[in-house]
């Protein structure tokens, strides 16, 4: 090292700031003391449909938007939709992610969580994928089929999960890739 050469100190990875800690006082917010209201009678046909094994969406007559699960208010037209339409059991993946949440058992394997768009509907519902599907095979636009729960109770999750269907577009893509 020569005299007069500038010595460059290595910059730290992370500049940390420290502050004197002062006292803290406890305060609580009890979320559990809240009640949340939801009048189930408004979506009776939908729940009945689930119990009997068919899927109903709610269609707004004014803008033709179909919501599944039903939304009681159409924000685009500011009306209450009232036309129930039957939807097929097939769906597509609109969006997906994997949860690496620190679960007790499944710490290693990511749990796929998908946003399902029921065919014929214009809305997305967060749902589960069938358990034996590898997360890496999931892609956006993947076709799915609803799998019913063993026991249907007329409740939200009578559709237990979704399982992948064979995608005809896949073969086309493969051919394209070969070319």
């Amino acid at each position, binding site marked *: 090292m020569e005299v007069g050469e500038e010595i460059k100190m290595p910059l730290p990875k992370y500049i940390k700031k420290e502050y004197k800690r002062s*006292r803290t006082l406890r305060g609580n917010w009890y979320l559990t003391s809240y009640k949340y209201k939801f009048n189930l009678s408004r979506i009776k046909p939908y729940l009945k449909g689930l119990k009997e094994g068919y899927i109903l969406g709610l269609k707004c007559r004014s803008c033709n938007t179909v919501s599944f699960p039903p939304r009681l208010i159409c924000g685009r037209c500011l009306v209450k939709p009232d036309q129930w339409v039957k939807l097929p059991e097939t769906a597509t993946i609109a969006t997906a992610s994997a949860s690496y949440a620190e679960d007790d058992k499944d710490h290693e394997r990511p749990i796929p969580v998908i946003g399902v768009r029921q065919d014929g509907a214009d809305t997305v519902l967060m749902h589960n994928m069938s358990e034996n599907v590898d997360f890496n095979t999931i892609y956006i636009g993947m076709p799915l089929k609803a799998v019913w729960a063993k026991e249907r109770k007329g409740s939200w999750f009578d559709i237990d999960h979704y399982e992948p269907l064979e995608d005809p577009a896949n073969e086309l893509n493969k051919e394209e890739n070969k070319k």
Partner: protein
Amino acid sequence: MDKFYDGLENKKFIASKCSKCGKVFLPPRKTCGDCFAKAAEEFVELPETGTVKNFTVANYRVSERRERKLKEPIIIGLVQVDGADTAMISEVLNIKPDDMKEGMKVKVVWADRIKGHPKDIKGFEPIGGE
């Protein structure tokens, strides 16, 4: 605020003083509302006596979770400690509701276990003989 809690640990009232208008705040605060000047630079120690500015006899106690009716009503007072310019809220103890009046002289009662917490001030009781 730290000094206030430290003071409570030693059973003392530490108040802050506005650097501009000289108002004394108890509990202390960083800024004086009237002059927007720093109020946390000068601290003064205040005596244990004070005056009841205003009070109410409460039949209900409200916590962060719920409200409940009290068996024995409690007296909630706004107590201005001598030397301070602001009153603070506290319980008034050892007195019947009917005997309460504004302008009464009171003295602090410390809690049994001091933790440096606002609850160290158990309340105020009237000075005997008055």
